[in-house]
């Protein structure tokens, strides 16, 4: 899939959401202005839900909660046909939430994640917002949530808990986190696979700037242990497009390598290479039955949340 195709898909997705979602609170620029990570998480999640139509995202419990009116777009399997037979009106059955899943949020904390491009929000910040929002959402649903920060190795691991107060620990960790070190994702994934004894949902938030094969070997390891895996690949707009002018000496944030070039003269080749790289990741993820979501840091958080909820629903 080319970059433009990817963008088109993304746009289509976006259009659907734009109809309903109040995205003001999902804008990373807006979120970056909020000093409190809890506020960030809350803003993001509640902002996300406040714009939604009543939908199956309400919960995944088997215990009946109440009914609401059917709206186009709702899945028909949740329609209460008995009520329809009696009243000739469509109603959706709602259920009480019930937690039974462990979610591991793996946040890449390498130096490359601190790249901010022209935007004020770096990849690590965006990743932190996303992790916070997801944690908030998960803990609100009663899922046990674990946060793992890693670079070459696991830097910090917050074990999974389902208490609401656990959120504070996660958010505090995210708030005081500073990226550093080189990426060695494969090693981290293998370590995680070996140390987790309960299957669950693994959410990887990273720029995936590592050896692709080794990454997927690690992910396969997790899949082998019957974990559900979602990858959020976070990239900066400039990393994708290389919209720079003039002679620039690019210095690698992790290795310190230097390349001096005119970006305008290499732009086309670079974009092609990046697209190939991203396509390859997407294909490989598809082949491995791993949900893959590419996120540009200039985009709001809702895409990531939708992707998570969709996956979470499938786990039911």
């Amino acid at each position, binding site marked *: 899939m080319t970059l433009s195709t990817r963008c088109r898909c993304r746009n289509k997705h976006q259009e659907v959401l734009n109809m309903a979602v109040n995205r003001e609170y999902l804008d990373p620029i807006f979120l970056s202005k909020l000093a409190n990570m809890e506020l960030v998480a809350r803003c993001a999640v509640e902002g996300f839900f406040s714009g939604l139509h009543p939908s199956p995202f309400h919960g995944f419990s088997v215990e009946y909660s109440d009914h609401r009116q059917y709206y186009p777009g709702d899945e028909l399997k949740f329609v209460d046909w008995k009520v329809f037979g009696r009243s000739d009106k469509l109603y959706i059955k709602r259920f009480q939430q019930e937690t039974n899943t462990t979610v591991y949020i793996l946040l890449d904390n390498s130096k490359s994640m601190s790249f901010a491009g022209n935007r004020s929000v770096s990849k690590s910040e965006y990743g932190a917002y996303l992790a916070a929002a997801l944690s908030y959402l998960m803990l609100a649903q009663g899922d046990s949530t674990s946060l793992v920060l890693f670079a070459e190795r696991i830097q910090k691991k917050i074990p999974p808990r389902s208490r609401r107060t656990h959120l504070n620990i996660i958010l505090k960790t995210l708030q005081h986190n500073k990226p550093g070190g080189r990426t060695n994702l494969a090693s981290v994934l293998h370590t995680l696979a070996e140390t987790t004894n309960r299957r669950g949902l693994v959410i990887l938030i990273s720029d995936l700037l590592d050896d692709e094969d080794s990454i997927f070997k690690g992910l396969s390891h997790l899949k082998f242990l019957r974990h559900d895996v979602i990858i959020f690949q976070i990239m900066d707009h400039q990393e994708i497009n290389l919209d720079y002018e003039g*002679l620039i000496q*690019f210095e690698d944030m992790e290795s310190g390598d230097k390349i001096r*070039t005119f970006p305008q003269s290499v732009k086309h080749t670079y974009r092609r290479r990046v697209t190939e790289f991203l396509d390859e990741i997407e294909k490989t993820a598809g082949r491995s039955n791993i949900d893959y979501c590419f996120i540009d840091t200039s985009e709001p958080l809702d895409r990531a949340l939708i992707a998570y909820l969709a996956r979470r629903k499938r786990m039911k």
Partner: protein
Amino acid sequence: MSFLEWTFLFGSIAIAGPVLAHMLAKPRFRRLPFTMLQFLRSSQTESYSRRRLRDLLLLLLRCAIIVLIALLFARPVLYIKPKPKDIRHIYYLGLDNSTSMSYTDGSSSYFEQMKDSVVEYILSAETNSVFNISSLVSGNWSYGLSKQQALMEVKTLKLSTGSANVDVFLSGIRNSGRTINAADEVSVLLVSDFTPQIFSKFLNVQEPVIADNYRYEMIVSSKPINNASIIRAQVADAAVDGFTINVTVANHSQIRQNRRLTAKIGTYEAESLEVTLPPNQVKIWPVHLESSSISDMQLFAPVELSLSSGDGLGTDDTYYLAVRMPQKRQTNLLLAEAAEDEMFLLDMAMQTLSGRGSDRIIWVRRIKVGDLSTTNLEWADVLVCSGITERLGTMTGEISDFTESGGRIVFFMTGEPAASATNQLWQSKVLPALPKKIIKEQTFPENSPCEKEFSGVGNVAAKAIANYRIDRIPVNGFWECLPQQDSVCLWQYQNGSGFIYFRQLGNGSSILANTSADGSLGSLTKSSVSIALCQYLLGEHNQIRDYSFSCNERIVLPVTDIDFGTGRQKSLLVRDCDGNKKRAVLTDSSLMVLDPGSIGWVKTLTEPELYAGVNLPPDETNMSKPIEQQVHEALNRVFSTGKRDNVTSADIIGTKEQKPAWIILVWIIISLLLLESFVANRLRR
């Protein structure tokens, strides 16, 4: 390829500039932390090599532009060998249309024979031939004619009066030869009667003409030549009753000439005599013409001398001679002497002068200065005074009017001048110089005047004065004179003092002869120089003259003493020999007609009527048959063939065609400049 200014090639060294700049250039950059260097590196590896390639290309382009500009300044010339199909046959035809070509031996004229011959020659030429035709008299060329055009040109060619101009013909070939291709075949054809006059011109050619081949054709009659001509005529003697013209008749033919020579003045047939001349003889016949056939008022007598018909060429049988008639003028001379018989000798000299020439009659009246009156002045044309007396002072006004109206006054210093009279005459500017004090020392006049061609005195007489050795006549004293501002000292003593002063006064003039009181006037007047001196003081002697010009020269008629009416005009209308009206340039001393046309009369169309006779050059119609061997040798020397590769002069045409390469270079440079800007622009991206 070669270079005309090869030193500019050193300008190529300037390529060191861009090379050094290329080597020393360090681009400015900014640092930027980045993440995806592995993608950048793989992209940049390809791009960097391209960029280096572009850099190198840009450098090469700039160096090439510098080198090409240096080449452009060095003025490169390409040598291109022309294709065989481009080789043209170029013919230079020199056709003699001079007067001698009108000779006929009973059948067709030389000129007609020449035209027939040339037409045949043109018809036999190749189809892609180019003809350049010159008529030898005018020297005009018709260049680049096709076969048909050349035939038309030859058929419309006409005879011209005058001689063949060989130099113009040859230089025309040389100049045209510089522009033709080296491979072109150049042929020269010369058709003429090769009379001695033309032949001598070929003998005098210094620089040869280069051609691939040349051909000449002599148009000569097979019969004996029959032609006589008047080659010269001039006035030999003038008397009261008429004048004599010596007429030179030449018989350059092989037949004895028995002709009749007739002289006419206008329509009046004045004289006729038998002329018998053996072959190859030149003889002079005097022809006397009476003055009675010419009116008194006529300045010029147009004398037409002609031989009766009887030879093959009629044009040269008539000779035109304009004779300037002497003006029969009466001069009233009043001698006003201060003392008794003081001017007796001068009187005698004037009387002698009056009797000598037929053009001037001098009536002399001798009076005492005291008797000088207005009546005397009214009678006189010239007043000669010995000394300056009181009477002259009292008559200053009358004398001034006399000179203003055209009279001439001559003062001889004989004794102490009357001071008041001298002052009055000086202040009224009648006196050309003021005698201040007498210098009593012996001196001698110069042998010749200071102003040799001064209008108003007898310049011819000055030569006679010199012949009589005036410089050996001692003068025992002279006056130190202060000349008027506009006076001219015509003659000096050997010590540098003025001898004769002249001043123009209106239409007249005044002269002061600085003789002394010790009888130096007597010394001069009793010497042999006296008559010539009188003639000098009275003015130009009007002699009989003749004016005859050759048709290839400009006409210049002296008009110093001719009155053209009110004021001096700058031009006059004349009718030339062909009957065309023209403007002649008129100056103070001469009337000039630049192109008289053919032969005949050039005549002014306004009064007074001036004539000039225009005739053929003397040898033009010398129809002596040329010696073929001599002509062949002379033309072999004039036309060099088969040397076009060896000769190095400017006229030599190389075996290859030269083409300047600067146009190609300019286009290449423009293209490279565009390419350079494009590449440089791409590089900035």
